[in-house]
């Protein structure tokens, strides 16, 4: 199997204007992946399937990843006008001052595809696509026209992560019911608080158990209820 850099070079040579980034995996498996730009992703996918060198004719798995907005605190050195007494004379001096700044790195939703080749008995090639943000611009091109096996799995990703696959023939929820509004696998999903906590709850679970007791009366002890 070719390395990701060789695959990237082959894609860029074959598909005009294709933008591919290599995402390295620092883990021991070293399974690096290719991040495709959404505009040319379909052409790249078609190339990977049809090219006799790769012949990635089998899409094994589609999954999603939620990257929430990340607040980054960093220390930056900035020039600042400082009034200082230098050699008995008051002067305004420009000095480098360390400042703590916070910035928010916008999150995104990501779809991950694992491709294998039945013909060449090789793989996997991992390709990814990312949406522009997590709220209103969540469309990615569907790979169902290229690999039929993506159909149900893309529906699952749509259901649980909320990624909309443009060009999907039948994009409906698959696990949850049609009227359901949330996307349960997102990091900011608030799950229904409808089960009794263990009798020996502590720390974070104890706080949740107490909030639930106040709201619903679940978990009231026999002494408290008089039953």
């Amino acid at each position, binding site marked *: 199997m070719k390395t990701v850099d060789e695959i990237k070079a082959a894609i860029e040579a074959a598909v005009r204007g294709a933008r591919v980034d290599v995402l390295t995996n620092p883990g021991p498996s070293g399974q690096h992946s290719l991040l495709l730009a959404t505009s040319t992703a379909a052409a790249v996918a078609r190339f990977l399937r049809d090219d006799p060198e790769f012949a990635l004719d089998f899409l094994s798995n589609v999954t999603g990843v939620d990257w929430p907005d990340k607040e980054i605190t960093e220390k930056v050195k900035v020039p600042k006008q400082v009034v200082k007494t230098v050699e008995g004379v008051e002067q305004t001096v420009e000095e480098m001052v360390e400042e703590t700044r916070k910035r928010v790195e916008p999150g995104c939703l990501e779809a991950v595809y694992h491709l294998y080749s039945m013909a060449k008995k090789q793989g996997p090639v991992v390709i990814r696509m990312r949406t522009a943000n997590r709220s209103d611009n969540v469309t990615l091109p569907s790979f169902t026209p290229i690999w039929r096996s993506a159909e149900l799995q893309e529906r699952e990703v749509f259901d649980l992560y909320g990624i909309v696959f443009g060009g999907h023939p039948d994009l409906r929820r698959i696990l949850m019911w049609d009227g*359901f509004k949330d996307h*349960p696998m997102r990091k900011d999903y608030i799950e229904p608080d409808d089960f009794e906590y263990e*009798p020996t709850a502590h720390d974070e679970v104890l706080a949740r158990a107490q909030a639930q007791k106040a709201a619903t009366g679940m978990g009231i002890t026999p002494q408290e209820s008089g039953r």
Partner: protein
Amino acid sequence: MAVDEGLKIELGKQGIFVTSLQDLYNWGRRNSVWPMQFGLACCAIEMIATTMARYDMARFGAEVFRPSPRQADMMIISGTVTKKMAPQVVRLYNQMAEPKYVIAMGACAISGGPFKQGYNVLKGIDRYIPVDVHIPGCPPRPEALLQALITLQKKIDGQHLTGEDRPRFLNAEAQSEFPVPEQGEHDLEPTSNKDVWPVPLVIR
């Protein structure tokens, strides 16, 4: 009116068989329970094994699984009830004719089991319909299901046909249909039927 056991045996020796209508009626009912053919998850495999030759549920008169709720009088909730499936389960229960009984089989059906903290699993079917016998286990052994059936038979045997504590099907005013939960935007609505399922107490 129950017949005195000693007198019954004594009369039996003389070739006279004495019984009460209630005993005869319950004897008939308990030995011909018709379960509904309906499986939800892995517990259903154990339920199937129970009906087959090795464990042979037919010994207890409950071998004919009916594929229609109209012809069944026992529902075995055999497996995880997801929130997507829960309204259908309640609807099937409503469609069964009285008298009807429910066995909640396995950890999932009685409490949500290993999926208790999941967002899409109902934490026990007893939140919406009355359950007669709960069987713990993940999944329960076929012997446990047979034990549940025997427990149910004992319950049927002890039912009085008249009086205040008569079973639901002999009481015209008793409720036999239960509200089907709606699938809402975030959860089932309502999340439980307060008439059937009192909010559980925690013994600390």
